């Protein structure tokens, strides 16, 4: 994560340092309060005790809250920014210290310039602590650069004595090199409207991130909405008021209102930063504890569910990498696209012994998963990957079994066609020739030849009948052309025992060839088996409902002994199931 131009703090916090800085911060804030109030200085904090308290509370919220946040790894950078913003926050108080040394007042003036830049950075870096997109990073850099230029310009050219709009500090600037009142005025005005533009951009940016982020990413941004709007409101209000009254006046109700709004905004912002850190901390704990959620033999997807629950990110997804198949799958073995980063969401690759096991797509604010996840969780993850691999292979196997059966059916259908259009047609034509020869022999009075030809004709007639039955047995053309109902009726026409086909079958819509073939074979097999068990009748019923084709074959014979393995395989290959009862077969298969 690359940092912004100006603030690249790589300070190593320890608890001792935090306590020390915290104590110093409190002293610093109280000193600022004292400076503002005794004797009365020229700042908003000086206006009343309540105003002073508001300034101190807001500044301390940033400093103390920031220090707390520095202890939570993923949001540590937010804490750094908050502490710095809190220190700069008291700048105007030092500037307005009437009895203070000129150097302190001059420094106070310069430090104040950076407060807004730091707050803007904080808002854009929320909630992860990093500014992720390139345009946003450039934007933050530009804001810091502007603040730096303004500070330098004011230091070198602003002579407070000649500043017509001065109110807080009209006497001291120890850095002054060349008094150019016009330039100083231009810098102040330029800075004011630049700040207004930045504040507007911040509101737009937060709104855009809210609208474009996924559900849980957007939810993580909610705490920043109110402080952003309040700070922007304070900046707009002050700019508009200054247009009306060029000299700022804390006792003016409009100016004072913008001051209060800004303070409250800062307090809420500090709370939002602490909230983001607390959330992250909570997730961190939950991830470490996650193993207790995984039972001994977890169902597919329970690792993902446990992690999602632990970190409060319902959109969290785990994609397992299967090197043998060269693709990602979910826990059930179904293929997935490779997870990619999106606004507010990151991906983390989890490896085991340098082998990629899974890729997790999660909220960008989550702790560093690669480091946080315990070894027991990794074992669960590896286990689920193996399970997913087995399931993926199972899916492949099912598809290949279905293909084998479909190929077999297509081949049988082709054979039936070949018989019909080939052997049957030729035998038919041959019979016609024999018939013509027989007529010719009769006309010639050759009775011996005529009777021989008649015999030949009878035999070819028998052969035609047998060939027709053979072709029908290989594949009943009526099944493909007219459907299951007519095919089962034809089956019933020539069955050795009474077969009733339920009326629903005739009206049943068409299903896939594999489903219809399975159901038809259940009819064939059911009738044959019922006959073998001494049944006096068979009832076939076919229904198509909710995308399933269901055939039942019932009879009144003795109890079934055959397991009908081949038929069960048929239904299995078509993605269905065969349920055997003593006198009933129920075959269910997806219609499509």
């Amino acid at each position: 994560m690359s940092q912004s131009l100006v603030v690249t703090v790589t300070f190593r916090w320890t608890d001792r340092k935090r306590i020390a800085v915290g104590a110093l911060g409190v002293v610093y804030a109280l000193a600022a309060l004292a400076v503002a109030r005794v004797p009365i200085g020229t700042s908003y904090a000086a206006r009343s005790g309540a105003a002073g308290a508001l300034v101190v509370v807001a500044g301390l919220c940033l400093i103390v809250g920031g220090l707390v946040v520095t202890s939570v790894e993923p949001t540590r950078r937010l804490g750094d920014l908050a502490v710095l913003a809190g220190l700069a926050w008291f700048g105007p108080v030092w500037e307005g210290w009437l009895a203070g040394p000129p150097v302190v007042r001059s420094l106070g003036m310069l430090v104040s310039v950076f407060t807004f830049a730091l707050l803007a950075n904080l808002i854009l870096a929320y909630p992860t602590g990093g500014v992720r997109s390139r345009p946003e990073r450039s934007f933050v850099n530009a804001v810091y650069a502007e603040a730096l230029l303004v500070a330098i310009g004011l230091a070198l050219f602003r002579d407070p004595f000649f500043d017509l709009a001065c109110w807080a500090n009209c006497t001291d600037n120890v850095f002054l090199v060349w008094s150019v009142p016009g330039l100083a005025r231009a810098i102040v005005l330029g800075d004011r409207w630049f700040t207004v533009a930045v504040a507007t951009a911040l509101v737009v940016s937060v709104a855009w991130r809210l609208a474009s982020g996924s559900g849980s990413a957007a939810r993580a941004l909610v705490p920043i909405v109110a402080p952003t709007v309040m700070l922007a409101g304070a900046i707009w209000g002050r700019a508009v008021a200054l247009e009306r009254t060029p000299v700022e006046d804390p006792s003016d109700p409009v100016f004072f209102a913008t001051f209060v709004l800004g303070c409250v905004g800062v307090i809420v912002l500090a709370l939002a930063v602490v909230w983001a850190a607390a959330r992250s901390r909570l997730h961190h704990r939950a991830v470490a504890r996650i193993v207790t959620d995984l039972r001994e033999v977890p169902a597919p997807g329970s690792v993902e569910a446990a992690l999602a629950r632990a970190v409060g990110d319902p959109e969290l997804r785990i994609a397992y990498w299967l090197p043998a198949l060269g693709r990602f799958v979910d826990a059930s073995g179904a293929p997935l696209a490779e997870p990619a980063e999106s606004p507010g969401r990151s991906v983390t690759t989890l490896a085991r012994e340098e082998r990629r096991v899974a890729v997790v797509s999660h909220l960008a604010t989550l702790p560093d998963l690669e480091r946080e996840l315990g070894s027991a969780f990794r074992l669960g993850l590896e286990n689920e990957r193996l399970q997913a691999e087995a399931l993926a292979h199972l899916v492949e196997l099912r598809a290949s079994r279905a293909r084998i059966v479909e190929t077999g059916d297509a081949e049988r259908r082709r054979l039936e066609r070949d018989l019909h259009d080939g052997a049957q047609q030729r035998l038919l034509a041959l019979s016609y020739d024999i018939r013509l020869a027989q007529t010719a022999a009769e006309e010639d009075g050759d009775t011996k030849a005529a009777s021989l030809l008649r015999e030949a004709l009878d035999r070819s007639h028998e052969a035609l009948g047998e060939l027709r039955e053979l072709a029908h047995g290989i594949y009943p053309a009526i099944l493909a052309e007219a459907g299951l109902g007519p095919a089962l009726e034809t089956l019933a026409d020539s069955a050795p025992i009474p077969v009733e086909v339920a009326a629903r079958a005739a009206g049943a819509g068409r299903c896939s060839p594999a489903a219809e073939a399975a159901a038809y074979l259940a009819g064939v097999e059911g009738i044959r088996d019922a006959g073998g068990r001494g049944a006096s009748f068979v009832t076939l019923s076919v229904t198509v409902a909710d995308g399933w084709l269901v055939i039942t074959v019932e009879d009144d014979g003795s109890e079934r002994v055959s397991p009908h393995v081949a038929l069960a395989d048929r239904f299995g290959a078509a993605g269905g199931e065969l349920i055997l009862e003593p006198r009933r077969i129920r075959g269910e298969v997806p219609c499509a």
Partner: protein
Amino acid sequence: MRVVVADDSMLTREGIVRLLRDAGIEVVAEAEDADALLRHVGSARPDVAIVDIRMPPTHTDEGLVAVRAIRADHPEVGALLLSQYVEPSYAMRLLEEQPERVGYLLKDRVLDIAVVVDALRRIADGETVIDSTIVSRLLGRRRRADPVGRLTEREREVLGLIAEGMSNKAIAARLFVTERTVEAHVTQIFQKLELPESADQHRRVLAVLAFLRAT
């Protein structure tokens, strides 16, 4: 009697044509697919078109579709479907779509050319013809509660001839009895089978076939 013969197999078609010509039927045109058949029917105006049920391009039900077109465009032209399938469903679908001037015969029935010639004449006279193999398969179907079993031998014979599409007059001629006797049998049969007796001879064929299939 003038006919057009349509069959995509040249060997079969030639055999049929020669047998028909031997029997004194005038074959005015031959076709090897449905398009040619419709063209020939339009130009030659035969009494009956003899049509193979399975023709190019899909080899499924082109014949049935062609018969529908012929009957729609030329109501005076009859149609005889030839098939290798003992499939009552096809015969019933034909009758549902075209209740008169049509027939469904198995291709090996052509060997008994007299049956074919008789069928052609009956079709030209406006009757329907269903192959006796199909009818006997339906009559022989095993039934749990068998209403057909309540019929006498003679009544079963008459029922079969009705299913084959014969008129009372034709049945009387076949059985060497008077038409009045046949009418009495028909009344008995329809009562025993609890079928509404239809005055329309074409409708009663389909009614009987559907009855035989459904019970």
